[in-house]
C-alpha cells in the first residue's frame, strides 16, 4: 500500500509550496569521496518530520538542513561515527533509521536469529522424538506399501506405452 505513503508525501509537499527536491545541486560537495560518504550517511538518517523517509530521499526543508549539516561536519573533518554521534546528541535516537543496540532494542535485533534458532531446534527435537519413538515404524512408512508399489508399477507401465 503505497497509497498512504503517497498521501503523506503529498501532505508534506502541499504544506511547503516551494518544496525543494531531495539532494539539491548546490548541496553537493566538491570532493567526490566526501560526497559519497555524505550520501551513505544520509541514507541512514531519518527526516524527522516525514514518515519513514531518509534525509537522502526527502524533499522537506528539514531534510535539506540535515543534509547540509552532515556535509558541514564531514567538511570539518568528522569521522562517520562522530557525525552520527553529533546528530544523535542533537536530535535523539529517533534520527537513526538503524537503531543502535541497547537494552531497549535487543529484542528488535535478536528476534530474527532467535526465531530461526527456536524454529530449527523445534524441528530437530521433533525429528529426534519421532525417530526414537518409532524408528522401525518410520522405516516401514518410508518404504512403499504393496498397494503403492502396485500403483507405481501400473503408472510406469502406462508411461512406457504412452512413450512408444
Amino acid at each position, binding site marked *: 500500500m*503505497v497509497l498512504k505513503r503517497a498521501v503523506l508525501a503529498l501532505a508534506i509537499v502541499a504544506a511547503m509550496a516551494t518544496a525543494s527536491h531531495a539532494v539539491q545541486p548546490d548541496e553537493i560537495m566538491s570532493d567526490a569521496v566526501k560526497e559519497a560518504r555524505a550520501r551513505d550517511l544520509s541514507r541512514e538518517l531519518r527526516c524527522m518530520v516525514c514518515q519513514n523517509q531518509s534525509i537522502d530521499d526527502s524533499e522537506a526543508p528539514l531534510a535539506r538542513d540535515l543534509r547540509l549539516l552532515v556535509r558541514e561536519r564531514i567538511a570539518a573533518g568528522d569521522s562517520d561515527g562522530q557525525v552520527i554521534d553529533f546528530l544523535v546528541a542533537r536530535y535523539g535516537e*529517533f534520527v537513526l533509521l538503524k537503531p543502535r543496540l541497547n537494552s531497549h532494542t535487543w529484542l528488535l535485533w535478536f528476534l530474527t536469529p532467535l526465531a530461526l534458532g527456536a524454529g530449527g531446534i523445534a524441528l530437530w527435537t521433533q525429528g529426534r522424538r519421532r525417530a526414537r519413538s518409532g524408528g522401525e515404524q518410520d522405516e516401514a512408512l518410508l518404504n512403499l506399501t504393496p498397494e503403492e508399489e502396485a500403483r507405481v508399477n501400473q503408472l510406469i507401465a502406462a508411461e512406457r506405452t504412452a512413450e512408444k
Partner: protein
Amino acid sequence: MIAESGHYALVLAFGLALIQSTVPILGARWRDFSLMNVARSTAVAQLIFVAASFAALIALHVSSDFSVINVVENSHSMKPLIYKITGVWGNHEGSMLLWVSILALFGGLVAIFGNNLPISLRAHALAVQAWIASAFYLFILMTSNPFLRIANPPIEGQDLNPVLQDIGLAVHPPMLYLGYVGFSISFSFAIAALLEGRIDAAWARWVRPWTLVAWIFLTLGIAMGSYWAYYELGWGGWWFWDPVENASLMPWLAGTALLHSLVVMEKRNALKVWTILLSILAFSLSLLGTFLVRSGVLTSVHAFANDPRRGVFILLILCVFIGGSLSLYILRASSLKQGGLFAPISREGALVLNNLLLTTACATVFVGTLYPLALEVMTGEKISVGAPFFNLTFGPLFVPLLVAVPFGPLLAWKRGDLLGAAQRLIAAGIAALFVMAVVWAWTRGGSTFAPIAIGLALFVIVGAVIDIAERIGLFRLPAGLALRRARGLPRSAWGTMFAHAGVGIALIGIVCETSWNSENIRTMRPGDVTNIAGYGLKLENLTPHQGSNYREMAANFSVLVDGRVIATMSPSKRNFTTRSGASTTEAALLSRGASQLYISLGDIAADGSIAVRIYHKPLVLLIWLGPVFMAFGGILSLSDRRLRVGAPKPAKSMRGLQAAE
C-alpha cells in the same frame, strides 16, 4: 436518492451477513441441509447488495453529487472520468467499501462454485466469512459511512489528492485487496476445519486454488504498487520498507509459506496443524495491515489517541478475530491427526525449510514494523526502524532460502537424495560461479556483495530450468519424445519453474539497481547537455501545458547516443489549480531493454535554470518482471488439472473430471 439507496443496500448486506453467520452453523449442528444451504443464498444476495452499494458510490462520484461529503472531499467536477471512478477508493470510506465488496465477491464465488465441497464444510466456511463481513459492515456503518450528506452542499469539490490521480490508483488498491481479502477464504476454511474437527488432504486441495488466486493478486498488487511509487514519487526508489508496504509484505510472506505447506498437505497429508496455523496467520496479517493503514496509528501514536474511534474499532475486530481464531486453534489443533512421515532430506523437508525461513522473514518484518510503536507506547521512547535495519536482518534470510530453492523440486517425496540433487544441479552451480567471476572481474573494486547475489540469482533460475529439463529428459531423450513429455508435464510443474525463476529474475534487478545505479544531479538551462552512462541528455526547452485540472511546466530533453537523437523525454512539474498549491513531480522514463533512464525535475530558479535529477537504472525492470513471472507461474499452477478437479467448477464438468480421478 442514490446515496440513500446505497446506504440502505449496505444495511441490507449487513443484515444478510448476520443471518449467514448464524443459521448455517445451527443447520450444521442439527444436520439440517436446507438451513446449511442458507449460507449459499445469503452469500450471493450479500454480493448483489454490496455491489449495488458500491455502484451507488461510483454513480455519486461520477455525477459529482456534492451533497455527499465523501464526494465533496475527494472529487471535482473537472476531474477526468477515470479518476472520478478510481477516486471512489482513493479515500478511507470508499476503500473500506471496496474491502467489503471484495470480501463479498469471494464469499459469493465460494457459494456459486463450491458445488464439490462437503455441505457442512461449505456452510461453516461461509458462516466464518460472514462473521468477518458483519464486523466490517458494522465498522463502515458506524464510523466510516461514505453516503453521509452535507447540510449546505458546496458548488465545487475539493478534488482528489494529485498524487493519486494516476492510473496506478485504478489497479493497485483493487489488486492488493483481492490479495489481502482473498486470504480470508483460507482463513474461513481453516476455522471451519477446526470447528468441525476434521481435516484431510482433500481440504488442502479445496483451499489451494483460493490461496493461489489471492497470492497471485497480492504478488501483482505489491509489484504494481512498487512500480507506481517508483515513477510517481519522483526519486526513483521502488521499495522503502515503509510500514504501509510492510503491511502488504507480511501477508505475502505468510501466504507464500502457506502455498508451499498446502502442497505438502495435499500430497502427503502431513503438516496439517502447521498449515492451519499459517492460514490463520496469513489473514490475521492482512487484518493487521488494514488496521495499520486505516487507523492512522502509523502517522503517530498520538494522532491515533486523539481520534481513536476508527482505530479502536478495527483494533477490536483484530483482537476478536486473531485472538478468537488462535484460541480455537490451541483448543482444537491437538485433536487433528498428524499423518505422512518423512525424512529430513526430502521434498517435504525442503518445504519445511522454506516455511521456516519465510515465517522468520515475516517475523522480522513484523517486529521491525511494530517495535517502534510498541516501544513508544510502553516507554515513550521514540526510535526509527528503516531500510538499513531490514537490509541487515531480512536480507540474509534469503541467502539460505535461495540456495535451497532449486533443491526442493529435485528431491523426492518421503526421502530424498541430496547428493543426487546436487549432481543434477552442477550445471546451475557452474553457471552461477562463472557469472559470479565475470561480474566480479568486470566491476573490479566494486562491492563484493553484488557478484555473489547475481550468481545466486542465476543458480535459482538455471536450477528451475534444470528441474523441468530433467523431468522431460531434455538432451537425454530424442527431441520429439522430450517435447511430448513437456506437453504431458503437469502445469503445476511449469508453474513452479516460472515462479522460482521469477524470484531469481527479481533478485538480478534488485542487485543491479542498488549496486550500479548512476545518478547525475545538476542545474541546467535550455541548450545544456549532460551525460550519464553513455547517454547524452540535452535540455531543449521548457514548455507550459494546461491540463484539465492542473497546469504543468514540462522540460523537453533529447536523448543522444553518439551525437544522434534516439528519443525525447519530457518530465514535468504539475500545479493543481483545484487544490491550492498542490504540486506533483512527473518523472519521465525511457526504457532501453530492461534498463531505464529516469529524469525528474526540481525547482526552477529565478534565472531560468532548473534543477534536474537524472538516473540510469540498469536492468531495473527485472525487479517487476520477476513478480510477473511468479504470478504467471501461479496462473499456470491454477490451471493444473489436479487443482481444477478440486477447484470450483460447475457440477456438469465436475462429474467427468471426478470419474477420471
